[in-house]
């Protein structure tokens, strides 16, 4: 049965505009592009799931096609759904591990020095390549020795001083790999006079969706909707996230892809730069010291899809002394766990080349972007350090 709300494929006017903007179709002829893999073949798959053309697996779910489409076809959603609905699922230990960010994170942080040491060893990389089909050229993000959650325990009591509160969905990356970003978020929110609440959240589900673990993703989604809505002291309180992909999941993927009812939280979710900018515009601006850097700003695909890039750019422009070069919008290629798989590694690198080139041309002091996986990809492929806009703002706050 086709649900009436799922017939966006039928709005396709066959203009092929989406295919122009698909970064994967740009670099490989193996992928026929969003038009063909999405609305065109959806009709066939509905008739007969056997007609699935598995080349759609090359889609990295960057969603650039949806931004371009003049007819509002939910192309990437159609493709992701088809991936798990129609393709035969084979169990792969690698996909299982890559998608279990909480499990890997708990383990990784527990043995951080050892794990970090090993994942950077050539021989281990060789082994990962051979056995797990994880490309040996890929560098891994380091694990932190203390999780963000653990750090937050110390600061929780100070958060109660603040009358107004914000719920912060920190995500796995902040918790296990990069607690500093979480600390920066807390610093910025506190500087705005807001206390921070964190919940017993689970991974937002993005890596699970990407690897086809839909049931598990739905489980996580339901859990997060429950704990986040419970944590809201009132209707007006915001739930912020500093990860573009987590925000996209909470706000859009839960409803559009996982078919969950996220209405108890949907109106409260705000990507962090949007929240902070609005506070600034309402006059709530902490004292900022000038930062005399020249930075290149890269807009992550999922932030683009949420229509949130402008908020980050405007916020960066509020930092005194900062020179911001806006890079032409290009996909970095990593697309979450996509760039961690042998079969897509070359594509992922080829997609990113365009971006790496323009970063080199811009020649900034460092790169600024909102997404953790973009950060890994850019740091691995260029000589530049990558900083989150909120960390930069935290630096400017006295």
């Amino acid at each position: 049965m086709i649900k009436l709300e799922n017939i966006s494929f039928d709005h396709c006017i066959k203009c092929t505009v989406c295919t122009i903007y698909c970064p994967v179709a740009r670099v490989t002829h193996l992928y026929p592009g969003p038009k063909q893999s999405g609305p065109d073949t959806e009709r066939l798959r509905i008739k007969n799931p056997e007609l699935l053309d598995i080349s759609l697996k090359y889609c990295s779910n960057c969603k650039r096609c949806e931004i371009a489409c003049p007819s509002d076809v939910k192309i990437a959603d159609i493709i992701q759904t088809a991936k798990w609905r129609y393709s035969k699922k084979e169990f792969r230990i690698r996909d299982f591990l890559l998608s279990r960010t909480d499990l890997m994170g708990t383990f990784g942080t527990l043995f951080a020095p050892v794990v970090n040491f090993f994942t950077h060893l050539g021989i281990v990389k060789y082994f990962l390549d051979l056995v797990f089909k994880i490309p040996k050229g890929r560098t891994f993000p380091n694990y932190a020795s203390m999780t963000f959650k653990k750090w937050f325990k110390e600061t929780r009591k100070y958060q109660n001083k603040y009358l107004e509160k914000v719920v912060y969905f920190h995500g796995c990356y902040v918790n296990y790999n990069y607690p500093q970003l979480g600390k920066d978020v807390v610093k910025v929110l506190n500087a705005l006079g807001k206390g921070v609440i964190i919940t017993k959240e689970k991974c937002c589900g993005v890596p699970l969706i990407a690897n086809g673990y839909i049931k598990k993703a739905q489980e996580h989604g339901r859990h997060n909707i429950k704990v986040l809505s419970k944590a809201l002291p009132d209707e007006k309180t915001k739930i912020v996230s500093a990860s573009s992909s987590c925000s996209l999941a909470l706000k859009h993927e839960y409803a559009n892809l996982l078919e969950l009812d996220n209405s108890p939280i949907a109106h409260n979710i705000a990507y962090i730069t949007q929240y902070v900018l609005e506070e600034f515009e309402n006059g709530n601006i902490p004292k900022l010291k000038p930062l005399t850097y020249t930075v290149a700003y890269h807009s992550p695909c999922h932030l683009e899809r949420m229509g949130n890039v402008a908020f980050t750019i405007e916020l960066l422009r509020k930092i005194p002394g900062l020179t911001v070069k806006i890079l032409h919008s290009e996909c970095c290629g990593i697309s979450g766990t996509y760039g961690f798989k042998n079969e897509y590694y070359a594509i992922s690198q080829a997609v990113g080349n365009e971006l790496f080139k323009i970063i080199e041309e811009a020649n900034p002091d460092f790169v600024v972007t909102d997404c953790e996986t973009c950060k890994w990809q850019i740091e691995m492929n260029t000589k530049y350090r990558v900083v989150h806009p909120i960390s930069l703002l935290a630096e400017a706050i006295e």
Partner: protein
Amino acid sequence: MKFDCIIIGGGISGLTAGIRCAKEGLHTAIISSGMSALHFSSGSIDVLGYLDNTVVYKPFEALDTLTGTIAQHPYTKCGKPLIIEALQFFKQECETQNVYLFDNENLNHFHVTALGTLKPTYFSQRSVFNEDVYNRFKRMKKIVIINFEGYRDFHPQLAAAQLSKHALFANCEIVAKSIEMPQIQNLSRHPHEFRSIDIARIFEDEEYVYKIADAIRLAADGADFVVIPAFMGIHNFNQIHNIIQSRTRLLVYEVPTLPPSILGLRIDNALKSRFAQLGGVFVAGDKVVRAEIKDDVVQAVYTANHPENPLEAKFYILSTGSFFSGGMVSEFDNMYEPVFKLKLHFEPQRNKWYSPQFFYSHSHPFLEYGVVTDENLRPYDSKNNIIQNLYCSGAILAHYNPIREGCGSGVAISTAYKAANQIVSLYKLMR
């Protein structure tokens, strides 16, 4: 977020207005829900191609006739001096991004369509029309129209047959040819799956462009002039055109293909990067769904992705295009403008909207429907009050027919320029 000027719709009109505002120092944002009509257009800029069903050669003379007869026409509201200034501005801004437009010294020229018909237009990219084409045209003995084997969106035989019928080509032999795609690594797909964009990317590759040039030279077989579908690159088109012409020693001419239009895409890229270069903020993939108006002044607009966060500006421009782009919506027996519910010009009876014949020489009446404005391009709300800080530009405007008059992009550029001019002077007064 707060801006000086918010432009709704990022087609040729919204982008032109955005560039003008940003260049004058206004903090400007463009919000655009999907890619615009540029992706479907020929990439040539029509100013005034036809008047009373005859081809116009001198557009600025014909403009006097047009503006003298149709008081409501957007061109009449702009006036000739402003139109000329606007077109020059557009040309120069494109040049900053290495898109060079040829204007045949204020005369119209013809460009060849994919079906082999000739269309009068004003500006074309240099790979479509330039002085060499103009000078050599009269001496031309043989034209070869080439396609790539398997590419299904262009039919050289059809184009050749149609073109041969034209009086201008009476003394010229026109031949259709096909060449094979050079062997491409990892090419697991058949060329018939390729669209213009795939082939344009192959042209971008240094490795193939020389091979393609050699294949073109072979197929040309003594012709003076070679016509190929517009594949000569998305970014490095000037260089690719030069390489192919110098290696083949032939004049190589591009015709626009079925969508996606590479020629249109080049202009879209140029305008967007120019706008960004001037500090403009382009929000792609979001749709303005609602506006807040108080005392005939727009206070804020709201988008689909951020229904509760106001986007505020001192001035607004509505350039959301016609029905095709969603600037206007038609229902069974009604039409409306979805964002501001502006006053529209249209016939209430549905059977008056269109002509029974699809290719009717007077074109379809619905193309003339659109937003009604005052002489400053400010629209009226449903209660017939002028909205003070809102201007309209481009295909959303009423009282002109882009097909019958061959004036789509010209109107889009001129009205954008006029709207932006007024905003810029008011903004300067306010400071």
